[in-house]
């Protein structure tokens, strides 16, 4: 019973991390029709940069912020000079951004080496909390859940309650009309892609504090993020939230109950969902 609850918390905290990565991915697709497979590399690079900042300044918060901020210009350049040139050819985008991820991964390997590195967390987050029922759980992952909810809530408010959010939603629906009525859609693209880069970089630092950072982590996390957006529906923010919860929980219970087949527990339901509802739970017919 207790371990069942424990797995649920594990799953939810992983979901919080996945949401950070998947929300940017899904909005980039929704607005710009871009499938960016370098998103995992942004996560890893942001994590490594945040790690160095944390080591240097001793502040985890600065590391999280810096890891996110550092990815913004990198993401911008990649978007402008590479991805933009593929138009809407999704295969070209996939191959191109996989290539970019290879380059980033190799550069990161050269700088930070091949060992598992853990982002140091502040002393207040290192302990454990005792829950009613005698379950002892690491503080850090609780804080992560709260952080995920905070980010999700702010994104939701921006998306649904502000002027910018309204324009982005309109752009997801019909970008030709949006630019025809005089809105600078290009500036909107830059904004959304900066936000996606920031969230991915930040996720790297946050995730690096409990999953550690190592060469190859970029692909592992990317595939989870992909499954999240497939479950939720490409281009949908709510979908990313629900998708992250589904994937986080499936993964936690899968690893616990069927360790050798945990990938199947994750991908099997997804494949079945895709066959009958390819646009995901919240996605719309294209």
């Amino acid at each position, binding site marked *: 019973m207790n371990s069942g609850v424990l797995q649920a918390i594990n799953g939810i905290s992983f979901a919080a991390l996945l949401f950070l990565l998947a929300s940017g991915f899904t909005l980039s697709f929704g607005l710009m029709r871009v499938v960016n497979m370098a998103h995992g590399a942004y996560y890893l690079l942001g994590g490594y940069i945040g790690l160095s900042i944390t080591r240097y300044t001793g502040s985890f918060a600065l590391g999280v912020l810096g890891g996110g901020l550092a990815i913004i210009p990198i993401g911008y350049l990649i978007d402008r000079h590479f991805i933009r040139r593929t138009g809407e050819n*999704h295969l070209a985008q996939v191959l191109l951004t996989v290539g*970019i991820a*290879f380059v980033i991964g*190799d550069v990161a390997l050269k700088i930070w080496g091949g060992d598992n590195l853990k982002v140091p967390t502040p002393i207040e987050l290192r302990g454990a909390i005792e829950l009613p029922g005698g379950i002892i759980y690491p503080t850090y992952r609780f804080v992560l859940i709260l952080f995920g909810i905070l980010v999700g809530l702010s994104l939701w408010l921006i998306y649904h309650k502000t002027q910018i959010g309204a324009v982005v939603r309109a752009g997801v629906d019909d970008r030709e009309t949006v630019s025809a009525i005089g809105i600078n859609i290009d500036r909107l693209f830059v904004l959304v892609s900066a936000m996606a880069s920031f969230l991915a970089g930040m996720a790297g630092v946050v995730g690096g504090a409990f999953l550690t950072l190592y060469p190859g982590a970029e692909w592992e996390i990317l595939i989870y993020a*992909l*499954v999240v957006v497939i479950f939720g529906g490409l281009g949908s923010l709510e979908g990313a939230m629900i998708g992250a919860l589904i994937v986080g929980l499936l993964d936690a219970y899968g690893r616990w109950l069927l360790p050798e087949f945990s*990938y199947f527990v994750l991908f099997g339901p997804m*494949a079945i969902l895709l*066959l009958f509802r390819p646009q995901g739970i919240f996605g719309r017919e294209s």
Partner: protein
Amino acid sequence: MGSYRIVLGLVALAAALLAPLAVGQFWMTLITQIYIYGLLALSVDLLLGHAGLYSLCHASFFAIAAYTTAILQVRHGVPTLLAAPAGILAGTLLAILYGASVRTRGVYFILITIALGYIIWGAVYRWASFTGGDNGITNVPPPSIGSVTVASQTAYYYFALAVVLLCALGYRILIRSPFGLSLRGIKASESRMRSLGYRTTKHLYVAFVISGAMASLAGVLYVYYNRFINPVAASFQISVEVSLMAIVGGSGTIIGPFLGSGIVLGLRNWVSSFFEFHAAVMGIVFIATILWAPHGIVGFFSRLHARGAKTKTAPP
């Protein structure tokens, strides 16, 4: 034009037949590998270049076939004559199952095939008690039929060459058949083909299964060449790399995927001999191909050729 291509083909064939006499062991094994990956790239290109579907799960068929053959041969002592067809059958069965993905199109097809590919990678990697996990399955014996064993590298070179040539021939017949034409029709405009009365999804499904069977054959060739198999064979990176091979060489042609395989494997071998960043170099090849050579080598030369022909016929 026709005779020029026949001459070129004959020269290539003669070069392939004589290569083992002219080059050393290293080059011969590299060329064998180029044939095998070229066959895998060709299988991907049946979907990519003819049907317009971007599959990124072909490493799965390749790996399942290779694992099946390896497990049967190594653990159960099943002879090649049964183990090899069983491997192809296993990969093809997986393709029959995964073929359901042709119900989707465009970006959803890409994403579903990535995810389907990860199922197999996860299975061979994590189900260590059966697949050997990270270490994979080692000591696969050379293929033998009755008392004849294809033991030497030279013999295996000719064996692989023969299989690949037969496949290329079958492939040529397939893509020139009405079925091949219908695939290209679907690529050009699926809605028009449907309104002409074609059951397009069924055509794509058949193409997917044939393509999966070819990838399985490549997997069996690979496991006997490599003598061991590990989860890398099932990885997403392999699926991406073979798509790149098809594109670099020239998608929609037969020679293209083999040229692409030669370029990618040759470059990787060459670069890794003096440069430790070989993933970055591969990444740069990906980027450069997509940005500057989306039609590949064959596309480049045929455009050059077309331009030459145009200037020849143009009035002075």
